């Protein structure tokens, strides 16, 4: 049981991480939609790629080229001239993505028409685009770095226009990898901050949840059941709403009560101490926040890995794929209740079974539906005056 419990706790925690990171990602998406940081990064990446740091030359020409101008509203204004863009740089209305084919086509067209030619006077005596014409124009470009890149692309294409375009696309793509790198790093920073806020706002304390799951069998099994359902869902997509509802439904020791201090404490019953009221919650929140930074996809993969490990430990779960089984079926309890007849291995030792054979349980009587009145809402409450007289408990 030891290994299985540990794994179940791990599954539960990973599932909580998935839900929290989904919420964080959703918030990040919202911020991104507002600020368009990706567009700012792309713009800066293109300026660096084209060696046009102030955004007045080739980068401006590229953004204003009809092929790319159509991708966004309004006009092009160069962003700030930093070494790397801010965490939350505003991309205003620039495009978030420029396809490499479009970029290459636009750049070659600019090269063919000459840098000084802008879109409006391209009609006058427009030259036919051939590699030779482009090469001739490129040699006259003012931008020596780009001149070298383009000449290299044209010369290695050996007269094939498509090959030249492909070369430019490759060059652009390697530049875009860098942009993606920047963006990923900045996103992780932003998500870390979001995660910290979300974790503290929801009071998701990993240490506390682990403790709770370790003690509370029912909640742990319910959480694992939800996690299994999520892992089987091949789309691996949970929306913000779904994530929040799931998190609420798990009945975990998270969230805040009216008494803030008590809900933050590691153990509400224990007296105040450095660990209980300060260090414990802080550490727990940090763990959750850092875990959420890794993102939901990471934790989905992790969940599937742990599920595989678990199914190797619990062989009866593995057959679930062949014969569809209700994931709610309590495997563990089934083992408990069917003790092996005599000394059979694999079961859980039943302390009383070897003392004396218990009288057989009554089979449910026909028509006996086993009603359950527990948890009934009381309609007429019994006041203390209405209680019967008590006895006992005295010397």
């Amino acid at each position, binding site marked *: 049981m030891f290994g299985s419990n540990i794994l179940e706790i791990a599954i539960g925690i990973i599932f909580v991480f998935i839900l929290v990171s989904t919420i964080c990602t959703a918030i990040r998406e919202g911020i991104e939609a507002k600020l368009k940081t990706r567009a700012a990064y792309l713009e800066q990446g293109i300026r660096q790629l084209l060696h046009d740091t102030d955004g007045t030359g080739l980068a401006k020409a590229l953004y204003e080229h009809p092929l790319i101008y159509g991708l966004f509203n309004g006009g092009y204004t160069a962003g700030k001239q930093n070494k790397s863009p801010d965490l939350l740089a505003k991309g205003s209305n620039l495009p978030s993505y420029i396809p490499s084919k479009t970029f290459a086509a636009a750049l070659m067209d600019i090269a063919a028409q000459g840098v000084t030619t802008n879109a409006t006077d391209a009609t006058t005596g427009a030259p036919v685009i051939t590699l030779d014409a482009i090469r001739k124009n490129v040699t006259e470009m003012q931008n020596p770095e780009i001149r070298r890149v383009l000449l290299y692309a044209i010369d290695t294409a050996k007269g094939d226009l498509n090959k030249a375009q492909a070369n430019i696309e490759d060059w652009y793509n390697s530049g875009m990898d860098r942009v993606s790198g920047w963006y990923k790093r900045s996103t992780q920073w932003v998500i870390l901050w979001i995660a910290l806020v979300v974790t503290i706002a929801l009071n998701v304390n990993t240490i506390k949840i682990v403790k709770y799951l370790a*003690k*509370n*069998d*029912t909640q742990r*099994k*319910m959480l694992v*059941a939800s996690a299994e359902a999520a892992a089987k869902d091949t789309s691996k997509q949970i929306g913000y709403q779904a994530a929040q509802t799931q998190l609420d439904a798990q*009945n975990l020791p998270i969230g805040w*009560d009216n008494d803030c201090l008590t809900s933050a404490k590691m153990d509400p*019953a224990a007296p105040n101490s450095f660990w209980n009221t300060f260090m414990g919650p802080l550490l727990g929140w940090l763990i959750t926040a850092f875990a959420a930074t890794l993102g939901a996809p990471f934790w989905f993969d992790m969940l599937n890995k742990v599920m595989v490990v678990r199914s190797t430990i619990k062989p009866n779960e593995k057959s679930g794929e062949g014969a569809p089984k*209700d994931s*709610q079926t*309590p495997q563990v*309890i089934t083992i*408990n*209740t*069917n*003790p092996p007849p005599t000394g059979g291995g694999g079961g859980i030792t*039943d*302390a*009383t079974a070897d*003392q004396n054979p*218990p*009288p*057989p*349980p*009554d*089979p*449910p*009587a026909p028509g*006996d539906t*086993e*009603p*359950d*009145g*527990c*948890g*009934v*809402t*009381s*309609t*007429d*409450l*019994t*006041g*203390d*005056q*209405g*209680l*019967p*007289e*008590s*006895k*006992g*408990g*005295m*010397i």
Partner: protein
Amino acid sequence: MAFSLTWLPDVLVNAGLKVAESPGWETRGHGDMGNVLGVLCHHTATPGKNSGNMPTLNTLITGRPDLPGPLSQLGLGRDGTYYIVAAGKCYHAGAGLWRGITSGNSNLIGIEAENTGGRDDSPWPAVQMDAYHRGVAAILQHIGKSADFCAGHKEYALPVGRKSDPDFDMDVFRAAVTDILNGAAPAPVLIPVVTPATPTQPARATLRRGLPNDPALVKIVQTKLGLTADGDFGPNTEAAVRAFQSQHGAVPDGIVGPQTWLMIDP
């Protein structure tokens, strides 16, 4: 004719517990029980932490419109008093499985302990939890079972997760029951019948509803509590004592013992 669980009050009183029999309990039940194989622990989840000692008692006896009572054999009040509801079968278990028992209503004695099941009522009052342990231990000892045959409703109920009561850890609970069964637990704390004399007060008897109380002492209590001093310790006086005790952080059992005497008339 009385049903078979008529031994319940004696077994619980002998374990040092407070017991109150609801009138007519001996003949109450949906037929008689089958073999008694264990105990199923519940909490009532009736909202309102301050709604009284056992506000769910009437519901346990009479049931609800769609399901007639009794709904459990025993109710456990916040002060640790066991209320005997029925001696026959009760509708408390529903579908489930525990140690091969699938017919919980026929094979398990149900104990509904008064608790909201929420954070407002956690942790449980120590006196109630102690009585829960001791009562379950006494019943299991009487039917010759180990603590393994005491299940939480949440553990028994199927499908898993159908029920969440009781809201405490059943493994810890069973460990405490095992200690009592093995004699490893301390003896139960009982209320002395006499409060020793103090420099200012003579020795005074413990007052309790149902005891042959000294009317003079009862009048003192009633005067202090602002009631009509008729010298009769009845349900109203008991309820007033309970209210006084819970205001002053004592166990609200309605019994005027040494602690309550000190608070009420030092």
